[in-house]
């Protein structure tokens, strides 16, 4: 499936942000506004890079997109659901139904094995891990090249391997959108490349949309679409230069 095609295709967008503002320390002398009216939309099946200098608000935008933070104002519709009307549990439910996360510092739970980490979202949703989902977890781990490391704890895995576990975890419940915050930021060049290839392959296989925050321009160039944030505003939103 061509991501660019999906982006231009008709139908309701997966993500629609309109005039999103995010302020911190509201009411305090240190009040700061990080996002100044962001509007953008993502379609199903896109593979998008979110770039920008540090402090530009990328991570904040990602947290807003990931329902980890509420915007101070503006509207956000995710998979057809207006987010601002939801309470905390509603946000959590929507998050686990539609979103997967990959963080810069892999964020695996050290007390759980690789496979258990991958199936954790299923455990949180269902209270147990069904045989089918455990099988899916195994398949995903095999898909990211970790068939031999399923029962190892995160400490026994390299950074790149941990990040691949995190990718498998993000995909286990078949989310519509995977949000990745500097997924390769903490890795050496070889591992970074490996992880990125893995992301692209998963995108091709599963058809899930990906939004990848990065400040590596080479990585951004390998995505289908690049959104650049500068000082809390969308500075550029265009198909990647490498795209045909």
């Amino acid at each position, binding site marked *: 499936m061509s991501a660019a095609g999906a982006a231009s295709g008709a139908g309701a967008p997966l993500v629609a942000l309109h005039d999103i503002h995010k302020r911190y320390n509201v009411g305090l002398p240190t009040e700061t506004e990080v996002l100044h009216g962001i509007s953008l939309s993502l379609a199903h099946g896109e593979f998008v890079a979110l770039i920008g200098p540090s402090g530009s608000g990328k991570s904040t935008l990602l947290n807003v997109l*990931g329902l*980890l933070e509420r915007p101070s104002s503006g509207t956000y519709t995710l998979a057809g659901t207006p987010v601002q009307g939801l309470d905390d549990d509603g946000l959590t439910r929507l998050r686990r139904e539609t979103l997967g996360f990959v963080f810069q510092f892999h964020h695996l*739970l050290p007390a759980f094995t690789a496979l258990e980490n991958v199936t954790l979202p299923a*455990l*949180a949703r269902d*209270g147990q891990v069904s045989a089918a989902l455990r099988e899916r977890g195994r398949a995903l781990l095999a898909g990211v090249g970790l068939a031999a490391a399923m029962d190892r704890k995160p400490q026994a895995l390299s950074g790149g391997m941990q990040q691949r576990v995190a990718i498998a975890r993000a995909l286990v419940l078949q989310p519509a959108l995977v949000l990745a915050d500097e997924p390769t930021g903490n890795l050496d060049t070889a591992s970074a490349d490996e992880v990125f290839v893995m992301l692209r392959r998963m995108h091709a296989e599963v058809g899930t949309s990906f939004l990848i925050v990065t400040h590596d321009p080479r990585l951004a160039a390998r995505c289908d679409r690049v959104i650049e944030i500068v000082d809390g505003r969308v500075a550029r939103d265009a198909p990647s230069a490498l795209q045909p």
Partner: protein
Amino acid sequence: MRRIGFELTVAVRFLREGRFQSLLIIFGVAAGVAVVAYISALVTGLQQNTLNKTLGAQAHVVITPLDERVTPVLPRAADERPFSDLQPRAQRLRNLSNWPLVVARLERQPGVAAVSPLVAGSGLAQRGEATRAVTVAGVEIERYARVVGLASKRVAGSLQLAPGDTIAGITLASDLGVRVGDRITLSTGPRSEVLRITGLVDLGVRELNRRTLLVPLRTGQTLFDLPGGATQIDITLDDVWAAQDLARSLAQQLPYKVESWQDTNSQLVSALNAQSVSTTIIRGVVMMVVVLGIASVLVVSVVQKQREIGILRAMGATRGQVLRVFLLQGALVGAIGSALGVVLAMALVFLFTRVVRGPDGAPLFDITLPPALAAQVALVAAVAGVLAAVAPARRASRMDPAQAMRS
């Protein structure tokens, strides 16, 4: 189980991950529970022992005729000063009217273990030059034996009372220099009888051993000039603590004076109450320490696990789930700790009965850890664990997932 499958899994993993902390606090809980259970068992044993010693030779409820009063000619108002005062009456020994009916009725009453009518008065026991003031009790020996558990108190001779026989306290016997088979003269006012000692008893209280002389009921009636009468009814109950209630209800139904052992041993009762209150305070304080211990460990754990809490939330765990993860940790620590504590308390009790012995080598007194008490203490500790976890768990559940992960 499935409903809290996530919470249980994560709680157990978190506890296993912080193994050292978890063990410390589990042992802390165990020590607290052991102390509470042990102290409770010890005090219960101690009180039981004291009660047995005190009540061993005493009826739980005693019925006697009402005191005789002089009835004033005119009723007097409370604020009125008397023109003349009345001399109180001397209390002579009187028959308890209708006593056979009352005894029969009391014996049918549930909770009553034994009932014994007696004629009780004072007299002088003489043998040769020796004279001792004694308390004479004319009894039906089978009934009386049941009321005070005489069988276990026999020291010499038999517990049979044929006409002309008497059973004496051991100190009285040695004061008079008599043994089983010897004769003494007992005089009560105008009457006197020669009685043969058939048995000696140790009632456990020196004063009783020095004064008690048991005679057959009929002999007692003769000695005190109350043919066919009884001056007192002794009652023993299955549950000593029911005595006060029974005494109160009997006093309302019967035209007699009814006294419970609590009325006659008010000092003992207040001592026992003081003990119970101290025990309760100790238990309360220890439980508070346990709660604070669990709470402080969990507070630290919540801070340490901020990032993991953030991950769990990002992975789709609700606030409620995070809350329950920490509540469960408190419950698990409380439950495991209290199970361990009960075992520890049993060991302490065993040690106590083995090590603490009287001069004769027998255990000083019996202490046991009743299963109900152990279960109660353990349950309280488990609940305390959950309570202790409430504040940390709420803190964890309120954490903003994005904030939690950034730190």
